């Protein structure tokens, strides 16, 4: 009997496909998310839009909160650790968290290195903005990739940019000759073996979800049509006027993402969406997506 294998780690991500993973900060929100049909919840100290507004160091969720969330729901519980903070990750593993998100939404703990994710039995999800970043994280042992978008912005434009970058990067690799791959790996800053694998298979070796800026059912369906296999929704739910109703609608839209009639039906009468921000007006230092490399 084996535990913690890559197949088991990727396997759980396979089970989450077509679903919505919702950011929650406490047990009450977790219950609302589960009742709305979330496939998993993501525990964090503050939702991204509050981190953006209030500033300060954003850390792993308090242990007590994580335990309360685990006790409140039967779906998988994920939690975020800071980039490079392998001790937060060790604590999350000890707590029995089902997936660890080494996340740019929290304040990075290490400016040079990400966590060695092979050292853990619990699987990791990591963010990326393009194919090279995705492959560096997979090379470190991530079992699931999510495009970063711009967390807490309520603006889908960055999520779209990152998903398009990954998808077109993959397509490009499939058109290259064998002799071009080493130079391509060098240019991408990505492991050669992964570059070669993708050039042969035309897909990532792990699932690819979307995060950062999803605020409406249409946003979720847009990311699914662009190639995401599931979506993470952060501030978009609990910063909206009616979280339960909006959460349910986003779940429905993620399943029926190819069906405009269904999308119209589920998008009706949801109350106010979160107020978004124009990401092009943000200063470089205010962007969360540039954390990690």
């Amino acid at each position: 009997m084996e535990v913690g294998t890559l197949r088991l780690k990727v396997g759980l991500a396979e089970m989450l496909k077509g679903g919505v993973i919702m950011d929650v900060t406490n047990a009450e929100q977790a219950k609302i998310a589960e009742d709305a049909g979330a496939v998993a919840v993501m525990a964090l100290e503050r939702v991204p839009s509050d981190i953006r507004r209030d500033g300060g160091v954003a850390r792993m969720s308090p242990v007590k909160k994580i335990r309360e969330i685990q006790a409140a729901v039967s779906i998988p519980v994920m939690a975020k650790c800071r980039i490079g903070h392998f001790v937060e990750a060790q604590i999350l593993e000890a707590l029995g968290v089902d997936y660890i998100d080494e996340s740019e939404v929290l304040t990075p703990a290490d400016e040079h290195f990400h966590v060695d994710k092979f050292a853990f039995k619990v699987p990791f999800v990591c963010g990326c903005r393009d194919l090279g970043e995705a492959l560096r994280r997979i090379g470190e042992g991530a079992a699931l990739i999510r495009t970063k978008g711009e967390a807490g912005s309520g603006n889908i434009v960055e999520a779209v940019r990152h998903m398009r970058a990954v998808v077109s990067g993959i397509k490009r690799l499939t058109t290259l000759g064998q002799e071009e791959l080493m130079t391509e790996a060098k240019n991408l800053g990505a492991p050669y073996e992964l570059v070669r694998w993708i050039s042969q298979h035309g897909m990532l070796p792990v699932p690819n979800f979307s995060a950062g800026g999803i605020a409406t059912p249409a946003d979720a369906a847009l990311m699914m049509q662009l190639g995401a296999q599931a979506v993470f929704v952060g501030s978009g739910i609990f910063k909206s006027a009616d979280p339960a109703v909006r959460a349910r609608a986003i779940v429905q839209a993620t399943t029926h993402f190819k069906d405009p009639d269904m999308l119209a039906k589920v998008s009706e009468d949801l109350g106010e969406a979160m107020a978004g921000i124009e990401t092009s007006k943000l200063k470089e230092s205010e962007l969360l997506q540039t954390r990690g490399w």
Partner: protein
Amino acid sequence: MDVKIGVLALQGDFDLHRQVLGRIGVASVEVRKPEQLDEVSGLIMPGGESTTLLKLMRAWDFVPALEKFHAAGKPIFGTCAGLILLAREVEHPSQLSLGFIDITAERNAYGRQKESFETEIEADLGQGKAEIKAIFIRAPRIRRLGPGVTRLAEFRGECVMAREGTVLVAAFHPELTDDASAHQYFAGMVRSATT
């Protein structure tokens, strides 16, 4: 003409099931709406989150359509979350289910993700006893089997794959391994139900 098997595609790893069916030469189609059940002669209910699947099924009236499908003698194969949805009773916590197979399923019965495991199990899928690779991910356990239920595979003496009439369930994920014997077995059930 050979059979066409539907794979419930509301959420979960439905695409991997379709890939296995493709490898053994069986036609398949995604089922996202109840009326699509009319086009298929068997249905796979994949792994995913059973609470999510249940909500999506109820939101779009899948339950009566599945009851009709089952009553018509069309085979259904549920893996992991699919097993939970097909069980007569569900524990830990208790939740609604279709009740098409007389078993009691306990959710997340082996623990959280770090306790998920891969192992060899002993299966008897009509070709004699054989060891097959099995992947258990936050898997359910079959806590009770009704008298009409046949045990098809065991792990440490516990039943992990079972059949009652036209309903087949597995607590593990045959779609995550290269071994297609479970899908072959189900395709056989669908063929004999169609002829």
